[in-house]
């Protein structure tokens, strides 16, 4: 019985990790219509910088996170100005295809830049991992992974934080309005560009910070960006694009499926089953588990 509970808990905590990956992407696609292929690369950069700040420069983790926020805030502004605004100006339809191409190139260059810089300036092995939040935990005979619980806690915090933002603040309500009806939004005289910029900046910072939490449990290397983007994408779709709380549920469903498969068929089949399950869900619910929710 304890084993079953342990498996369920493992599944839930794995789900937290998947939700961590997918959250910011769901936010971005639904509000700004930018498909950021380099999402995973930002995620990895967040993890990398966190390791540099907290391990190599020995800063307190909270301070490291703060510096990370500032750094990526600046980076997001640059990204927004350089790429998103340029494409937005042409036509909104173009934003999707143009952003795919542009972020693909951006992602490739960013990952090579990180790989090369790390090996040249930091240490010869470009893998980022932090042992900060690692502690064994046993509750009622069930073993829990401390680092994953920390991640789960952060994800819950992030989801509720955004929920409050989207429902209680003026900007947040504007974001929902924009996602619901773009033309109506413009008609009543609000500026979609500025709001997009704010949302996008928030999303990128959230992505980087998520990366920082991710490396507490799982090591990352510069070239995992694209696989992570694809993984995030699958979770987003499973949840239903734009439904932020659903990403947590979707992540959990995937996590549980993988852990149970590992137990019954062997770990090597876990990816296959979660993929098949996702495919089946899509076959029966073509817009994801919770549909195209507007938060």
């Amino acid at each position, binding site marked *: 019985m304890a084993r079953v509970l342990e498996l369920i808990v493992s599944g839930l905590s794995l789900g937290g990790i998947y939700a961590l990956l997918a959250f910011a992407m769901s936010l971005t696609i639904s509000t700004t219509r930018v498909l950021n292929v380099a999402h995973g690369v930002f995620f990895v950069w967040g993890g990398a910088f966190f390791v540099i700040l907290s391990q190599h420069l020995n800063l307190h983790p909270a301070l490291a996170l703060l510096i990370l926020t500032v750094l990526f805030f600046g980076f997001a502004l640059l990204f927004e100005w350089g790429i998103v605004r340029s494409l937005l100006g042409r036509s909104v339809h173009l934003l999707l295809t143009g952003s795919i191409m*542009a972020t693909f190139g951006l992602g490739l260059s960013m990952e090579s830049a990180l790989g090369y810089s790390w090996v040249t300036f930091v240490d010869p092995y470009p893998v980022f991992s932090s042992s900060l939040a690692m502690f064994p935990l046993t509750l009622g005979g069930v073993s829990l992974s401390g680092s994953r619980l920390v991640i789960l806690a952060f994800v819950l915090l992030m989801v509720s934080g955004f929920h409050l933002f989207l429902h209680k603040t003026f900007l947040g309500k504007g974001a929902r309005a924009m996602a619901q009806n773009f033309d109506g939004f413009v008609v009543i005289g609000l500026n979609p560009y500025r709001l997009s910029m704010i949302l996008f900046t928030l999303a990128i910072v959230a992505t980087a910070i998520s990366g920082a939490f991710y490396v507490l449990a799982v090591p990352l290397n510069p070239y995992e960006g694209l696989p992570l983007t694809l993984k995030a994408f699958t979770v987003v779709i499973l949840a239903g694009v734009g439904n932020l709380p659903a990403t947590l549920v979707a992540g959990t469903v995937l996590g549980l499926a993988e852990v149970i498969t590992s137990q019954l068929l062997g770990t090597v089949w876990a990816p296959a089953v979660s993929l098949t399950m996702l495919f089946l869900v899509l076959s029966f619910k073509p817009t994801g588990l919770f549909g195209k929710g507007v938060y």
Partner: protein
Amino acid sequence: MRPTRARATTAAAGVIAALGALPLFLSSTWLVVMFLSFVWLILTANYDVLDGFLGHINLGQGAFFGLGAYVATMLLNIPSVQQLGALTHVVITVSALAAAALFAAVMAFPLFRLKGLYFAIGTLILIFLLQVLALNLGPLTGGSYGLYVPPAFFMSTFVAYYLALVVAIVSVALNCYLSRSTLGLAFRCIKEDEGAAQAIGLSLMKYKSIAIVLSSLPSAAAGVLFALNSGFIDPNIALGVERSLLPALMALMGGTGTVLGPVFGTAIIRIVETVFFHYLRLPVPSMLFFGITLLAVALVIPEGLLKSPRMRRLALFRALAS
């Protein structure tokens, strides 16, 4: 003045003749580069059947390629197939094409219930699944160790070049045919407005299935050629996600929905890639410049080369786009 169809055909014939004569002058390096470029062109042109004409983003185009490569190689490792003499190549090619077409036809049913990004993910899942199967079913596929093509069946790059050129011409011709035929018209009606298309009596499932099966065949053939020339495949080489994502990128770069878009898109990326990896000798990695250049190109022509407003000002490009 708009070029007549005759002039366009002559131009096309000229290009094909030039490409046909090239191998006599090229070193084996360039033969390989061109052969691989033809493979990418095939994948991109096939990708565009679903994207440009039907409006579905297919992130699993590489699945047909990989299936073709694996089926052919797996068969070649069976002694009874090896001993068929001249028939061996026929058997493996037909089997590869059949496998890909069957896969496409079967997958059409669940896939086409999805739309837009959801469809894209559905196709992406398929390629991931195939890769996992290739990795895990060791006794059948060689697992992570991969599969070898028996040396007796190696195809020289010289021969592979010509065969790939033929398949590439077929793929582009297919898109050309689609752009001028009622079948293609049906596709584009469906792309514009599915409801209206159904209203005028078009069976959505029938046309979409035709499209996906058509787009699977040349890609599978490309997979067979690749395997025979390469001599060795593994789950990354044959079913890696790049073979699904790059065709989409190349089609976007050239302009989706145009006949020559895939040609230009493939050319742009292959040229940039070759220049940076074969020639650039800076201490900083070539991949970095490759990425920056892609980004730069994307910002200048986000609609794709043949659909970009500044390019359209040149009559030449307008003609090519039609």
